[in-house]
């Protein structure tokens, strides 16, 4: 009887994916434009934004950049006057791109290594939501070799194969107490891999207004044999055996984007991207433990995500021959329905504001910087599975810098 009731302790969800885990930081120029730019052949980051545009890049190039990101989230329980904040931890999304092709030929090769999904939140070991989550460190790194071909002088197509390396570390407290009163804890740690693709079409009309259609496929990332380590009082050890492992699946959603690029003048371009993020694939999250006990059952937790979307508008102004200035605004609709918001990714609809600048020191060497800000709207709800009831409010700050060499 005691064991049956113990199982209730663990029948709760482990993690959740959200817009909050979608990292919109894949190229300094585009970041400066709020993440718009699929319809602009701006630079080698088109490997990510639109493989179809890569072949229209004038030069071969290689670039590396990073965006130290601070995810500042706060929580307040319903009817409490205490606001709890995540610890200041800096995530490190990065992007590496290389584009090469014979001059004035119809094709180009590209390679991108970037981090389209990830999350780093650390609420500390003793906050009011500790039994839902204490910390999460999730990284998804995509490797994408790409081929881009000019069909005509004004139309390019491109596609890349995506390999994802995923790495997750998740910790939360378990509501059983040691003799000194402290809570038990579980740490789930594992790596996984998944596959997908990224393809796009780039069309430059006679008026030089450009269009893009891109599709990044879903990437089902499988985690096999991750370690499930339970720190519990010894009298409960048989219920939570040492050396346990787990398997899980992480569904990273497909994204379809329509983009428009409008030249306002010779030096100024406007970019608009509308994206449809197909989160509906995330219906539930299941954990399969290698060793089950009467207290530790496999779990299947409903997520019921709907599709999310985002709208981004950016401007790129070539102020001088060497200096470019950028700015952008955006809005993203959350895929997380009321009742499913969790401290892993306390998601809600969000505003995006960005600014950026680029400087070409020589014709070969260029530096770009950006600042990206997201205001995730405050959201009050009660999680259906954990009963965690309160208000989340999140602000995201990410300054960034990249170096580019062109030839």
């Amino acid at each position, binding site marked *: *009887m*005691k064991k049956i*009731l*113990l199982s*209730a*302790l663990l*029948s*709760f969800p482990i993690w959740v994916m959200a817009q909050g885990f979608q990292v919109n930081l894949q190229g300094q120029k585009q970041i400066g434009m709020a993440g718009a730019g699929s319809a602009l052949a701006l630079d080698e980051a088109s490997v990510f934004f639109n493989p179809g545009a890569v072949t229209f890049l004038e030069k071969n190039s290689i670039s590396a950049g990073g965006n130290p990101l*601070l995810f*500042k989230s*706060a929580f*307040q*329980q*319903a*009817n*409490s*006057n*205490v*606001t709890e*904040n995540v610890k*200041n931890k800096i995530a490190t999304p990065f992007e590496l791109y290389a584009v090469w092709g014979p001059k004035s030929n119809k094709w180009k090769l590209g390679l991108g290594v970037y981090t389209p999904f990830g999350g780093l939140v650390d609420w500390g070991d*003793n*906050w*009011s*939501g*500790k*039994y*839902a989550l204490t910390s999460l460190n999730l990284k998804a790194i995509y490797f994408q070799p790409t081929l881009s071909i000019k069909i005509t002088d004004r139309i390019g197509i491109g596609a890349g194969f995506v390999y994802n390396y995923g790495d997750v570390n998740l910790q*939360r407290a378990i*509501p*059983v*107490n*040691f*003799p000194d*009163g402290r*809570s038990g804890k579980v740490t789930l740690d594992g790596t996984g891999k998944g596959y997908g693709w990224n393809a796009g079409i780039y069309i430059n009309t006679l008026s030089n207004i450009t269009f893009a259609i891109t599709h990044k496929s879903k990437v089902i990332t499988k985690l096999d044999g991750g370690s499930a380590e339970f720190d519990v*009082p*010894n*009298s*409960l050890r048989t219920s939570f055996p040492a050396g346990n492992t787990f398997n899980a699946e992480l569904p990273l959603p497909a994204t379809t984007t329509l983009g428009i690029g409008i030249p306002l003048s010779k030096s100024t371009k406007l970019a608009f991207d509308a994206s449809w993020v197909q989160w509906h694939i995330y219906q539930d999250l299941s954990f399969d433990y290698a060793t089950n006990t009467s207290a530790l059952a496999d779990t299947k937790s409903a997520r019921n995500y709907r599709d999310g979307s985002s709208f981004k508008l950016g401007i790129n102004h070539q102020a001088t021959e060497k*200096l470019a200035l950028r700015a952008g605004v955006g809005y993203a609709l959350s895929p997380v329905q009321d009742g499913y918001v969790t401290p892993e990714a306390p998601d809600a609809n969000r505003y995006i504001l960005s600014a950026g*600048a680029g*400087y070409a*020191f020589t014709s070969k060497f260029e*530096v770009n*910087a950006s*600042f990206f800000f997201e205001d995730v709207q*405050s959201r009050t709800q009660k999680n259906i*599975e*954990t*009963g*965690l*009831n309160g*208000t989340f*409010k*999140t*602000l995201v*700050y990410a*300054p960034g*810098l990249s170096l580019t060499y062109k030839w």
Partner: protein
Amino acid sequence: MVGEITMKKYILNSLLVASVLFVASCKPEIESPAGTTAGSANFSKYIAVGNSLTSGFADGGLYLEGQKVAYPNLMAEKMATVGGGSFTSPFFTDAQANGSGYLSLTALVNGVPTLTPVTTNLAYRDATRLAKYTGEVQNLGIPGMRVDLAFAGPFGAANPYLERLLPDAQVGVTSYFQFIQGRSHTFFSLWLGNNDALGYATNGGVTTDATNVLTDKSTFALLYSNLVNSLSAGGQKGIVATIPDVTAIPYFNTVTVAALLNAAKAINPAAAAIYIQTGTGTVRAATSEDLIRLPFQSAGLFGSTTSSPYPYGLHPLNPIANNWVLDKDEVAKVKDYVISYNNSIKSLADSKGLAIADTYAYLNQVKTGIIINGIGINSAFITGGAFSLDGVHLTPRGNAVIANVFINAINAKYGSTIPVVDVTQYRGVKFPN
């Protein structure tokens, strides 16, 4: 050219530095009305009237750790944000922190608990009496207090927890009803009456003395109104709480007839029934509607043949004695009395405009299981998290949950915004390491 590069570097560096400073200063803010107003109540001097639950009694004893997390103490901490003053409790000293002594879970093997009494650092001044506490007291909870005995002067001599708080001259003279008066309170809580039904129930429906009488319904109503009238005589606002159903506590839902039968079958597959002696003296096979008291599991009686050729509880000629069992007729009787008591409490509170913490309804919800901030809480023994090792009284976690039931009821009634207690900061049962 060189100057320009330096200039651009300078601008970029400045941007980065500015970004970092900006980020460090810009925390997300969440506005909350919690903790801003006392509404129409005045919490400057709160007193808590009640029994063991109010005192912080847990694990079969009254000890310092339990006293500190008694639900009135947790409430008082939160009231401080809306004009609440200090709140004094008759704490045991650190040197005598284990107070009356209590039960500790020292082993859990295959789901079978071993409970061991803690006998160090006790607070006894002689064989039966506890160290005196003098000084102001606002947590007036007395383990064992009943509505009927609240008016009995001699009970102050018989009850060590009240005796401890009374000056020698008042022992055996001053009743609890008198003891709680004259404290110039501005707000009160009253959770009393549990033992008027529970004393009878936890003795298996057998009355042997004044502590296990089932208090007459109309007597209860009359005496309870005397208490409320006295506490609100100066127009004070307050909260009263209903009495939980006795079947909502682990004391009566852990040692089930089915569990005993399974245990018997494991030894003798032919075992067919558990036999009990009912309150009317009848011997019959037990059903799931008959409740067996928690201490029976460690009484060493079940299946014993030491005092009879027939195994105890497994043969009609050696049934489980009446005092171990609250048979189904007794259960129905206690339930009926509790409902009557609660109707008296609620109608009186309504007529006085007092808030009501409906712990009867709430603990019935807990019985089927609730989830608060990722903690599953139910009325199971040990694993349920809300009830301590005596199967009747609350764990620190249970106290936090009940404190919020009171706080929410107070806020709803008086328009106050006492902040809620963070339940996750309080433990359930301690498991041996």
